[in-house]
């Protein structure tokens, strides 16, 4: 299948090269403008997080364009309905504040959806005029004569202070801050998975269930953003972390936080100005003494081992046999495939925590990470990559705050063997004739972005097979004789 695909792709490249050619421009050292950004905006991340709370409808407080664009982007990736309301700012709201619109939006969302939860995310617009959403929510509660009201969670997510990842973590942290309660310590673990795919969330849940560890996964959009076909229309899709569970986060045995960069950046505006960004797990540690285990995404054998060992240690339970076997199979395939991948040079790009985990995995199998790049501006990518990629660490170029054009220029000059990341770099792959393996977010030119499995031994296995086969296919296709046996 893949070989075929690659073949067609090469052909097309020649035929249509002139239609969508993006000329490569030599780099000037420091760019002011961003050309083809490698990041998205904060309320998008917050909306995804809100979608992972049961019965939650997100409202984006700002112009209707932000909500429409964000929906458009999420829908084309998840291929699911994604309802996100907007407070539809008018010129007037920019002068007198968005209060009236905010209240109207809340009222209309309640009457249409009767949601359990409303998640409010702000935008550049509402933040610029200094709108206080918490105040509006209180206002709404004071004025309404409704008897039952949804829970409200609000996150401050101006995009000039961070990317979609900052928005995502901000929303998760806000949920916990507003809802979690302390109390007698239970046996359950909190799992904060970060911005991963619905398939990854299902994978994490399976693992916890196989361990028989009680857990709270926040957020959990494994169903809400990857629904089965319905026989009647669900205004709010089933699934998501129930509010009662969020409440219990404060009494958990411990938290496991996947990702080591999270929203803990040092370059983005918010952090630079007041160093206030907190993660959900940090908050729980500070407020309720819930110990926190922060670790990279379980992708690649060593990061998976770390995750499984932590689970085993925290629960006092053995790692289920199933996973030992999965691990064994993965290593076996590393052995089978090593000669096709060893020494190949890869470019990895996208969300910082995913880039760290992917790099660690590639490092493990002998693929050199030539460039690790992200549009995120944490300023911490370099340290994390060096830490988790012990092999050729000095040869890795690490770039925070990179855009696709910088990646483009870099690739044109350094001729890597493979690109690994979301579908937005496809144009680079096409132009330079470099194979690309799609993972992460967004995947807009393939189906199944929501079902890409990255995590656990089996997620790693799938990526390993794909990457290896892609490299084989690219060699096969460019070989003069073609061959049928490996």
């Amino acid at each position, binding site marked *: 299948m893949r070989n075929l695909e690659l073949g067609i792709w090469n052909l097309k490249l020649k035929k249509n090269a002139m239609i*969508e050619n993006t000329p490569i421009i030599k780099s000037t050292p420091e760019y002011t*403008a961003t050309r083809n*950004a490698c990041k998205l905006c904060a309320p998008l991340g917050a909306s995804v997080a809100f979608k992972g709370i049961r019965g939650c409808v997100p409202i984006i407080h700002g112009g209707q364009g*932000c909500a429409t664009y964000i929906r458009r982007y999420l829908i084309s990736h998840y291929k699911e309905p994604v309802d996100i309301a907007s407070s539809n700012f008018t*010129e007037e709201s*920019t002068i007198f504040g968005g209060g009236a619109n905010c209240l109207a939006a809340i009222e209309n969302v309640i009457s249409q959806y009767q949601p359990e939860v409303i998640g409010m995310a702000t935008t*550049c617009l509402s933040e610029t005029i200094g709108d206080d959403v918490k105040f509006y929510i209180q206002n709404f509660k004071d004025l309404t004569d409704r008897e039952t009201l949804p829970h409200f969670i609000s996150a401050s997510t101006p995009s000039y202070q961070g990317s979609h990842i900052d928005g995502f973590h901000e929303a998760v942290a806000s949920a916990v801050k507003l809802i979690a309660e302390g109390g007698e310590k239970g046996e359950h673990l909190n799992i904060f998975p970060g911005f991963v795919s619905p398939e990854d969330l299902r994978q994490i849940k399976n693992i916890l269930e196989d361990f028989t560890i009680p857990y709270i996964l926040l957020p959990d959009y494994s169903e809400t953003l990857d629904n089965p076909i319905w026989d009647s*229309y669900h205004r709010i899709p*089933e699934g998501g972390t129930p509010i009662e569970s969020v409440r219990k986060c404060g009494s958990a045995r411990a938290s496991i936080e996947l990702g080591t960069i999270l929203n803990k950046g040092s370059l*983005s505006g918010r952090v630079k100005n007041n160093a206030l960004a907190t993660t959900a797990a940090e908050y729980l540690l500070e407020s309720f003494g819930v110990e926190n285990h922060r670790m990279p995404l379980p992708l690649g054998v060593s990061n998976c081992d770390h995750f499984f060992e932590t689970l085993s240690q925290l629960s006092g339970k053995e790692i289920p046999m199933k996973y030992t076997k999965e691990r064994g199979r993965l290593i076996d395939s590393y052995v089978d495939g090593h000669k096709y991948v060893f020494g190949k040079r890869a470019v990895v790009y996208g969300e910082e925590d995913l880039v760290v985990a992917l790099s660690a995995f590639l490092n493990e199998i002998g693929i050199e990470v030539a460039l690790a790049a992200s549009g995120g501006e944490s300023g911490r990518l370099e340290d994390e990559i060096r830490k988790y990629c012990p092999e050729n660490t000095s040869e890795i170029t690490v770039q925070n705050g990179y855009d696709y054009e910088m990646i483009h220029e870099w690739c044109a000059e350094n001729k890597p063997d493979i690109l690994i990341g979301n579908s937005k770099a496809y144009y680079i792959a096409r132009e330079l004739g470099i194979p690309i393996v799609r993972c992460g977010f967004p995947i807009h030119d393939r189906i199944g972005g929501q079902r890409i499995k990255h995590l656990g031994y089996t997620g790693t296995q799938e990526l390993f097979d794909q990457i290896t086969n892609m490299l084989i296919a690219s060699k096969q296709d460019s070989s003069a004789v073609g061959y049928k046996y490996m």
Partner: protein
Amino acid sequence: MPNRKNYINGLPDPSTLKEEILKKYPPKLAKKRAKGLVINDPNLEQEIMANVRTIPGIITQRGCTYAGCKGVVLGPTRDIINLVHGPIGCSFYAWLTRRNQTRPLEGEDNYITYSFSTDMQDENIVFGGEAKLKEAVREAYEIFKPKAIGIFSTCPVGLIGDDVHSVSRDMKAELGINIFGFSCEGYRGVSQSAGHHIANNGVFKHVVGLNDRERVGKFQVNLLGEYNIGGDAFEIEKLFEEAGITLLSTFSGNSTIKSMEYSHTADLNMVMCHRSINYIAEMMEEKYGIPWIKVSFVGAESTCKSLRKIADYFGDADLKAKVEEIIAREMAKVEAVKSSIRPKVEGKLAMMFVGGSRAHHYQDLFAELGIRTVSAGYEFAHRDDYEGRKVIPSIKIDADTRNIEELSVTKDEAHFRPDLVEKKAELVSKGFEFKDYDGMMPDMLKNSLVIDDVNHWETEKLIEFYKPDVFCAGIKEKYVVQKAGVPLKQLHSYDYGGPYTAFDGAINFYVEMERMLATNIWKMIDAPWKHESELVGSMTIEA
């Protein structure tokens, strides 16, 4: 699986559906909303409420003013650098999302594959972003040496007091290339439509008329409001070329700023999407005396009609003969395909909610296959797109409309074409119609339901009531509709398909419909063991 309905004796009266939809809204809202839902009677003069603000909290298809200005009108033009001044999201989301195609000639610039942004950060919001904007413009110039740069404002820009127009003037003076700004902040208007108007104004003011190029053809025309989604414009260009009609410029599919500069030397403007571009057509007539006609190349019949209309306008015997030759040849191909597909899909029902002209144009294409449109509406159109241009004088001017500058245009004595004015008068006396857009409603069936700015709730109810065979909208509606077991055809981006214009495009569309309507997957939606169970969907919120 919806039960197939067959409305052989006309469409049913949807009054109950309308009532049910409105019941959901609070009384005051319901009263207002009722005016946006019209049970059509083509023989009556009915009024619809359109181009009014979407109610906060209601999930709309609409985008923002910026989207209409940058994304729609200027986005497809290849030799201009479109620099978005604002935080990153607005620019990222408009990066090639409309699938416009373009075909640069050897050595020509093409920037449409880029999304440029000033990526505003905290300090720019606090201290102002003009300095960063200027730097970005200089940088863009230095790297790309473009002929023109357009600067687009997103919401925060106006609020923090950045003046993109004065920056444009300064940079134009400094760099010596054409640079102009747009105050198209997202909140400025009801929808994309406001952005179209702002873009029209900007292009007219800063681009049209800059180059008085010598004539290059006998019949010089511009095509307005065709954006080359999925290669649509290529199909139309092909026809013109064969007929010997010189297409100077298209606004703005497969276009260049360079060609817009001499677009005022045309003999005729043809308007495809009336909503997004009629402003330029009007202004060009006032300033240069170029008349305009409404055309459509969606559907084989419409294509014939439009081609004949152009030939009639020029009144040239050779041109008429050539056009007839093309029509005869192409229609034979079209008929061959149509006659094999039509029997398989005839009698099916369609709905379409999209854009400012497509919801109308595509009805023709469906009609060619015998598929009837039971309900339709626009996302961002105005009353004239529903009821015809005759209602323009009676459209209420609200605060949102007042927000957008109306350029005062005066006759350009040096370039004015009295010959065209004369030609127009003569043709009018013979019954030839100019500015001939009568809107969507007169073309729709009796009892079809016309809905402006349809929302999710209404979509659900519509599907329940009509059980259509195909629903046309965009990606945002796609999965809502398909989850209900109805196939959705995207009429914004064509689901990676297209082109659908002109003759080959029509054939393409017929085949696509055959494929969509004949697939077996819809029959698998109900699991066979599901039928007894009543416990499904406990989370479903009762309406």
